[in-house]
């Protein structure tokens, strides 16, 4: 291990020693060591399937490790549930928001530890405490609002507020920033620094390299369920970090921008004219041509996902018109759009994407079967699944493994495979790289470029502006649920897109 003098100055707060965990045939963790110190922000890095989530779940009592030990301030602990861990002072905000959608914000923050008087809940105190917890995050929202009515970003912040509400010594944040926009991330970092200066140890998982270098003090790298290295941020340049994560040297500059000027065919494959739906999209115009990647840019809540859902028939259009190959169409359900060979991988993979208890194979063939044209023999179905597992390098023990046991990035690949199997003409990718590690991101972007060259039309939605700029031939900018600008060719730069987003806002 990389013993450094710095370790002696700050005593260990939370320590994992030789932790191992298996799920059936999958070794999620094998003999992992990890040390979190007082008053530090420690980034846990690794590719999808490296074991980051499993390690966190073992530390917080979601899973029981098969072997190894966990020490909190030198004392062995074995939390049997997240609540147990909370009692020890380990607070966690998981990647997927785990709150109760139909309760109010205040109830969610205080759930399970409501202030009571004579066994009755003191609602006024509950609200006050919730307000105080949110104020620490610099948020002032009505705490009586139902959580479900808030955006994912606010829900995430509520989850963090809930974690802060207990007297935590360790705060674990599993990809807290993946749903936040820039100002919210800055806000969160301010709070994280303040908490660190109060002596908290913060374990931070993210896929954004910039953020690691902006906030973390130390980095632990995992790969394939094994401990790879621990360094202080200053000692670990980016190239080296990425190299450690993927296990080989990676040339970040290799992926060249694809701004070849292309002549669009005269009729767009899909055209949306002034489409609208109350509370989702106010006014969106866009057209997508075969062989083109159209980027959809905008801040969180600008209506990107909502626009994609309208194009796919997932929500009903209220005003405006959709045309496929110049012909007006009405999609009353996604399967009508699928019949026109449009495909969509949703932003929310867990709730709207995978069918968790079905196998990888069944998840891949679902859309193809649902379109009803193909008659798949069992042999053909196995071939199909194996084919996509190979070309998208999906990491799974077998095609018959339940998809829920795969890591997030591999689940995303399964969803892409599901749609590629239907050979779509237009593929809508809503945040395909969210929660996915750098190497897989590069793979996905390469795949998008490959599909586009074959003549597929791509609608690419991402919060990462740099990605949008890199892959798109044209970019449509949304602000406050309206399209406000269209850029093409050489006009597409991060500055120009940012300008359009910020313009007069």
């Amino acid at each position, binding site marked *: 291990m990389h013993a450094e003098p710095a370790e002696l100055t700050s005593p260990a707060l939370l320590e994992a020693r030789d932790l191992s965990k298996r799920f059936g045939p999958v070794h999620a963790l094998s003999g992992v060591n990890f040390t979190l110190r007082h008053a530090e922000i420690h980034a846990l890095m690794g590719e999808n399937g490296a074991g980051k989530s499993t390690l966190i779940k073992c530390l917080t009592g979601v899973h029981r490790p098969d072997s190894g030990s966990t020490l909190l301030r030198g004392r062995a602990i074995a939390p049997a549930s997240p609540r147990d861990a909370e009692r020890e002072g380990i607070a966690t905000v998981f990647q997927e928001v785990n709150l109760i959608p139909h309760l109010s914000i205040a109830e969610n923050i205080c759930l399970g530890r409501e202030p009571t008087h004579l066994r009755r809940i003191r609602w006024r105190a509950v609200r006050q405490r919730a307000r105080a917890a949110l104020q620490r995050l610099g948020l002032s929202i009505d705490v009586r609002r139902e959580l479900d009515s808030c955006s994912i970003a606010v829900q995430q912040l509520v989850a963090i507020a809930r974690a802060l509400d207990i007297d935590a010594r360790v705060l674990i944040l599993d990809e807290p920033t993946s749903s936040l926009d820039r100002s919210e991330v800055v806000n969160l970092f301010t709070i994280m620094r303040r908490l660190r200066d109060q002596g908290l140890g913060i374990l931070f998982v993210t896929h954004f390299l910039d953020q690691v270098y902006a906030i973390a003090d130390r980095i632990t790298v995992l790969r394939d369920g094994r401990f790879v290295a621990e360094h202080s941020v200053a000692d670990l340049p980016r190239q080296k970090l990425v190299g450690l994560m993927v296990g080989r040297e990676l040339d970040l500059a290799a992926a060249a921008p694809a701004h070849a000027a292309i002549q669009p065919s005269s009729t767009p494959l899909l055209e949306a004219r002034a489409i609208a739906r109350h509370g989702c999209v106010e006014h969106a115009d866009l057209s997508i041509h075969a062989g083109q990647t159209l980027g959809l840019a905008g801040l969180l809540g600008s209506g990107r996902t909502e626009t994609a859902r309208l194009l*796919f028939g997932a929500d009903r259009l209220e005003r405006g018109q959709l045309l496929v190959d110049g012909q007006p169409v009405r999609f009353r359900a996604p*399967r009508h759009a699928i019949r026109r060979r449009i495909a969509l991988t949703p932003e929310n993979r867990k709730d709207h994407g*995978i*069918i968790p208890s079905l196998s990888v194979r069944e998840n891949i063939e*679902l859309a193809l079967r*649902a*379109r009803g044209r193909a008659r798949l023999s069992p042999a053909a179905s196995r071939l199909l699944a194996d084919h996509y597992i190979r070309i998208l390098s999906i990491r799974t023990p077998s095609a018959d493994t339940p998809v829920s046991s795969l890591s997030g990035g591999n689940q995303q690949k399964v969803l892409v495979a599901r749609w590629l199997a239907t050979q779509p003409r237009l593929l809508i990718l809503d945040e395909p790289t969210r929660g996915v590690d750098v190497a897989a991101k590069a793979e996905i972007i390469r795949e998008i470029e490959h599909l586009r060259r074959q003549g597929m039309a791509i609608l690419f939605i991402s919060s990462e502006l740099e990605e949008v700029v890199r892959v798109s031939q044209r970019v449509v900018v949304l602000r406050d649920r309206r399209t406000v600008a269209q850029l093409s060719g050489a006009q597409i730069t991060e500055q120009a897109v940012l300008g359009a987003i910020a313009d007069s806002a």
Partner: protein
Amino acid sequence: MKHLAGSILSTLASVRWALLAFALLLIFNMVFTPGFFDLQVRDGRLYGTPVDILNHGSKVAIVAVGMTLVIATAGVDLSVGALVAIAGAVAATLLADRGAPWYVAIASALIVATLFGLWNGALIAFLRLQPIVATLILMVAGRGVAQLITGGSITTYEDPRMTWFGNGSLFGLPVPVTLLALVALACAVATRRTPLGLFIESVGDNQPASRLAGVPDRAVRLCVYAFSGLCAGMAGIIECSYIKAADANNAGQLLELDAILAVVIGGTSLMGGRFLLVGSIVGALLMQTLTKTLYMQDVSSDIAPAPKAAVVILVCLLQSPVVRERLVRMRQSRREAP
């Protein structure tokens, strides 16, 4: 061929806990219930306790097959007992009061039951009522409908072709056994040789995601409730045939609960998703064997539900992954102790 053998083996493996309980129960009977396995052949037909169990168990199993698909879509059908009464009432009334031919009576009963199933499905798929509420409506109202049809009395009929379904024999076994085999086979082919089974499981496991993948989720829901209605209709005809009459009050009484129990014992989760047809059939036969065992052991029918419940809990515990993990852990620690 190899593939087929493999899939049979894996099916048996997934219902092993229900089979284990079944085997234990049969061993118990072999030792403690004299004459349990006595079989006689009269007029080319088998008689004996196991045959009785098969006969009555088949009726529950037919309903359980329909219930399995409903539960796989994360729903439940509480109306099957009432539909049994309605189907019986339709058939018996047509035979007795209208003098309709037997096939018209049967077809009408099946159609009526299927339509009521569609009604359940429409409430759930289109009006988005919760399945338990939607089918509760018919569970409560259905017996009233059956009373309306029979005019409030027990309607008896005399048509040997109709009574054959409950009392006749085919291939040396009671007719309901053959009916069950047909229903189970048709259902297995429809769900495993076509994508329908995949759709049912995906809708039950994650409805919004299934819709986004293009699965016709409403049609799937309509389909499973209509099929459950049809299965209840068949059970209604069998029951009406047993007693040569339609008894709107008592026909199919509590059958919905027996069917749900059979499905759960068979290893299909009430949360929806994966389903096991064979498991449900084993579950139904297990429940029937248990009922018969208690009866033959002179357990009063008033307290019989208690031992029944004990067996249900046992099978459910055996299936629970938490309990199994604990057992494994206990065994390991005992091995490590000395």
